[in-house]
């Protein structure tokens, strides 16, 4: 789509796009290029010189059991976060959509955690599950269940998934509610007159009509779980115990800044770059299809 009517001249528009282009070059293109470039080199341990190694960094990564383990961790983590927060979001949205009055009140009560930083959400849940003073771990102990996420990898994983999904429910709720409210009531009523029960209607009408929004949310939530949950992981587990919660983006950070393994970190950045690229393309494909409806 293009405008028929426009202003003439070229120096003014050039001036107008200049700030954004400049910032993109300095803080986006140059660093991204740098990441790709660095991924082909191996610095010596003293950082005095670097040696060109081609794709060796990638080859090394893809045979490194820690990196592959981190891949697996990321897949489990992001699937769990996306599915649980979307399921709860849909559940609450479906309930709120049933109300004639009051859906707005519940919306206000449910969406504000969107504003809470993942790192702060991490601190909140860490406090509840703290081994010595946490309320949740205290009652779990009373029930005979030993809670110690600093030693047990599966408990650590459960906690970071819980903390990451919690704040995300708001977002999914909001989109599902908007999606549900966009479904014409007449379709639902027609099905009800034909004798379809609530669950029947939900399964055969509502869910299919929500599928575009569900697909969109799936992509967005995976991107969230890949990157934005850094704060949750860093505050609760720092990737531990024994790397059991080290997701890919956390590994870029810990290899690049903590272990100073720059070649490997750069190669990991490039792999992440490709992954996000693929996710973005999928998302835009979806938007394109939606436009053509």
């Amino acid at each position, binding site marked *: 789509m293009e*405008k028929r009517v426009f*202003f003439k001249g070229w120096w003014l528009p050039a001036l107008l796009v200049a700030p954004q282009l400049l910032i993109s070059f300095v803080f986006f293109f140059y660093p991204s290029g740098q990441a790709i470039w660095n991924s082909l080199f191996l610095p010596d341990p003293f950082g005095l010189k670097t040696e060109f190694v081609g794709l060796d960094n990638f080859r090394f990564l893809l045979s490194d059991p820690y990196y592959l383990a981190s891949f697996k961790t990321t897949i489990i983590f992001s699937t769990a976060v996306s599915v649980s927060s979307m399921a709860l979001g849909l559940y609450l949205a479906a309930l709120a959509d049933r109300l004639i009055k009051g859906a707005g009140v519940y919306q206000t009560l449910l969406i504000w955690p969107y504003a809470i930083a993942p790192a702060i959400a991490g601190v909140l849940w860490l406090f509840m599950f703290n081994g010595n003073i946490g309320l949740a771990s205290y009652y779990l102990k009373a029930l005979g269940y030993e809670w110690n996420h600093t030693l047990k990898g599966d408990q650590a994983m459960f906690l970071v998934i819980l903390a990451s999904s919690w704040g995300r429910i708001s977002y999914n709720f909001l989109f599902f509610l908007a999606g549900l409210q966009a479904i014409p009531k007449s379709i639902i009523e027609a099905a009800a007159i034909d004798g379809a029960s*609530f669950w029947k209607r939900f399964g055969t009408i509502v869910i299919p009509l929500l599928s575009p929004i569900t697909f969109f949310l799936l992509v967005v939530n995976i991107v969230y779980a890949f990157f934005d949950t850094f704060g949750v992981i860093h505050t609760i587990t720092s990737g531990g115990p024994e790397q059991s919660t080290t997701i890919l983006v956390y590994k870029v950070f810990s290899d690049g800044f903590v272990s100073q393994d720059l070649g490997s970190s750069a190669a990991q950045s490039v792999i992440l770059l490709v992954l996000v690229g693929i996710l973005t393309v999928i998302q835009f494909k979806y938007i394109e299809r939606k436009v053509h409806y």
Partner: protein
Amino acid sequence: MVEKKRSGYWLTHFGLILGVLFIFFPVWLTFVASTVTQDAIIQPPLPIIPGGEFFENYANALFRGAPEGYGARVPVMQMMINSAIMAIGITVGKIVISLLSAFAFVYFRFPFRNLCFWLIFITLMLPVEVRIVPTYEVVANLNLLNSYTGLIFPLIASATATFLFRQFFMTIPDEMVEAARMDGCSPMRFFIDILVPISKTNIAALFVILFIFGWNQYLWPLLMTTDPDMQTIVMAIDSMIPTGDDFAHWPTIMATAMLAMVPPVIIVVSMQKFFVKGLLESDK
């Protein structure tokens, strides 16, 4: 609506209230913990009604830091100011450069317009976390570590806002610009007197989303700021929790957590209408 069974109605509310309780509970506990003494916290279980130390704990957190003997004593007042400067800097910066470039893309034809458009389009794809190491090096080479400029600018480099404004400008009738040109209106005049005022709702929506994005930044300020005077409240809370948690002063930490949550939550709730609209439109 379809059914009007009484029991269904109450079950709906019951289910929603359960959801609301699940959402509220961790924050309520945090609030309680920020109003009691350290002793009340280290002898579990924690009470679930607030105690009487509200003013004491918040004054400590804001101006004095944790009491003697509990690790680093860092008052968070300066950090809240830093967070606010960073959040507002990112918000205003992004809105201004996006408005300008969206205006250029929609209302002008100029050489390399498509190339510029694609260059900006690509930046949509990558969060700063992915290119964190080289971005850090760029900022270090420009001598921008521990500065507001260094905190703000790398996070402005993304095109979401540009696309939102571009899409909105496309929906404005051509008659508007025709009429303006006939009246001898210059491009910048048209931009300032017509385009910006009718974009008010979109600007407000982006303001909420970008403010939250900026306030909640964690990894970038964590790497960028070594000077305690430049830290932001969200990143600093992590350093308040020592690894052996025996010496953590929990009332101060929890008061800090509350202080880190309150500004963005107030903005979301008070500007809910714009926020919901902006979120539903900008992400789709």
